[in-house]
């Protein structure tokens, strides 16, 4: 396992990035309406970004498609 890059954004930083992107794409009112959902997404992104993975290992899962009947 290798450590996660130290530069990965925190949940608060992800939330600010998503909020800015929402304002640019949808306008301030819609961004405000989406705020709670974007806060949740930011928390998920921070957890995922900080999770270590082996370099060039752990290929994306196919969610059981490879489980033969």
């Amino acid at each position, binding site marked *: 396992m290798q450590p996660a890059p130290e530069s990965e954004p925190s949940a608060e930083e992800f939330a600010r990035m998503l909020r800015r992107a*929402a304002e640019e794409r949808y306008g301030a009112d819609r961004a405000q309406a989406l705020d709670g*959902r974007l806060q949740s997404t930011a*928390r998920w992104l921070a957890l995922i970004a900080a999770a270590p*993975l082996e370099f060039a290992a*752990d290929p*994306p899962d*196919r969610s059981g498609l490879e489980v033969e009947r």
Partner: protein
Amino acid sequence: MSELNELSAAELVARVQRRELSARDTVLTNIDRIDQIESWLHAWVLVDRDGALRAADDLDERAVRGEVLPLHGLPFGVKDIIDVEGLPTEAGFPPYRQRIARRDASIVARLRTLGAIPLGKTHTTQFAFSDPAPTVNPYDPARTPGGSSSGSGAAIGARSVPLALGTQTAGSVLRPAAYCGAVGFKPTFNWISRDGVLPLAWSLDHLGLLTQAAADAGLVYGALLDDPSATSALSGAPRIAFIEEFGERSEPEVASHLHDVRSRLADAGAEMIDIRLPFELDLLLAVHHLIMQVEVAEVHRAQVAELRESYGPAIPAEVDAGALIPAIYDQQARRLRGALGRQVDALFDSYDALLLPTASNVAPPRALGSTGDRTFQAPWSLLGTPAITLPTGFDTTGLPIGTQLIGRRGADAALLRLAAWAETSLGLIAPPVFA
């Protein structure tokens, strides 16, 4: 005939196969039950009385000729994102009201060949996401039935049909089953074809079965896959791992009930072991929720652009949020799913099943506008493992509590055997009593 509606699917099929009961009687029994309670339960979008009776009469004629099918005369409800030829698939979305299916979904066609009878379409949250259906909980109309397979859960809980089809992307089979006092079974990912089923999230969507008993789920699943081992008796004492994190995150009455279930299974001969997950549960949930948000956004993006005003609030918000997620983190989530899944697979080298509450709570009030807590079911949708909920008790207000068992990917029949054993050991809860 009213007590016939409380027969399990296995008992009902056995009586029809022995010609002690006609298929027409089974359909009429269910229609009679629906007529008694549907005005307040709102489980059904439509009941295809004429179509079901025609199918029943055909099956009765075949029985006279000596033809006996594995699910002869078994009526079933179909969640309204699954196609039934000649009926609309509305998905809780008004523009689809006249969207008539030209052919059966594969699961419906397969059930027909086995002798089962589609009785009608059951309510779903919009497109099986989170904007609630009109359905109420059969144990307390002020409570949610859960979602997204809301009508299927309520119909089974109220004993208005012995089998119903649902789908699960996060917790949409097991949670409504648990909240409504039913059994809900979600097989290994993609082991029941999704052909003819509206997608919500391609890599997470599962078809599932809701029944009154685990033995019924085994009967139907065994017939669908032509695998009689799904109804065999369990051999040997099972080793079951109780996952402590979920107990810690449960409401006190649910946690207390699960500890009681744990003790009763041990008394019945199971070896019960307390374990913790080999990773953070919050990471597993984050991976599920992020992948689901991206996939829902991709599936609905174009239609939301065209018909936004016809949607409830939930899917357009998910589309708008999902469209902002950087692709690199979506890809990392999919790699993490693989890594976490392999760690869960390894648990089954030591245990026959994992045990946890089906939901952290009992059915919440409908006034909250939510169909409940998905966090105890979503991990198993993410990883594609088979999962089943059994109705094992009530809280002090009389609302059902579900117990969830998880099996190894691909070991569906083994999980159904274990669930049937657990059901026999624990007993079934009483159905709701209506004034």
